[in-house]
């Protein structure tokens, strides 16, 4: 597609429920990132996928968070047993790997509210 697409745009869930957030990267972009943005704060790195290599999961805050990506396609970020502190905007970005710092394109994010 023309840009990075994220769905849903907004999600309200009850505490304790599981949620899945989806990211469709730009076609051909081998690198994909998930970031979390809490209210009034900057973005925090969560996870990085590059092709079929093992993902960099160093930013995941707890074992309730997981993400998957098959090849160079769609990625899903799953949060199990959601807590109120999980409320945030979750942003996805994709990039052509060989362009490194020059190729980031962000989506518009999913605003997650845990009530």
């Amino acid at each position, binding site marked *: 597609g023309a840009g990075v697409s994220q769905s849903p745009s907004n999600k309200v869930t009850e505490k304790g429920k599981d949620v899945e957030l989806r990211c469709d990267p730009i076609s051909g972009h081998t*690198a994909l*990132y998930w*970031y979390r943005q809490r209210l*009034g*704060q*900057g*973005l*925090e*790195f969560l996870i*990085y996928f*590059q092709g079929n290599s093992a993902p*960099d999961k160093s*930013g995941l805050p707890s074992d309730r968070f997981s993400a998957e990506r098959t090849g160079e396609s769609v990625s899903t970020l799953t949060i199990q047993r959601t807590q109120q502190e999980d409320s945030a*905007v979750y*942003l996805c*970005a994709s*990039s052509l790997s060989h362009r*490194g*710092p*020059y190729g*980031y394109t*962000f*989506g*518009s*994010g999913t*605003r997650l509210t845990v009530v």
Partner: protein
Amino acid sequence: AQTVTQSQPEMSVQEAETVTLSCTYDTSENNYYLFWYKQPPSRQMILVIRQEAYKQQNATENRFSVNFQKAAKSFSLKISDSQLGDTAMYFCAFMAPDSSYKLIFGSGTRLLVRP
């Protein structure tokens, strides 16, 4: 660990005037990249300008320019001839040239351009 600090939570400027947003960072790396991103209410992060640390010349993009002081670890953004459309959150970000190319963000500065 690398950190990025933006000490101005909010700034205000009159339309057509010039404003400077501050950013400092901490790293032991010698080679890295610095960025300014704009985030309007649509939530999508838009790249404003980037600087490679090995380049001494300050980057310029139309009305946007940076003052990069490597020894002082300072990277400020100057917006000239401010326009109403410049109203947004601005984030300073650091990237080390490791295999993941992940970004480390500051907490942001909210800029309001007054008519």
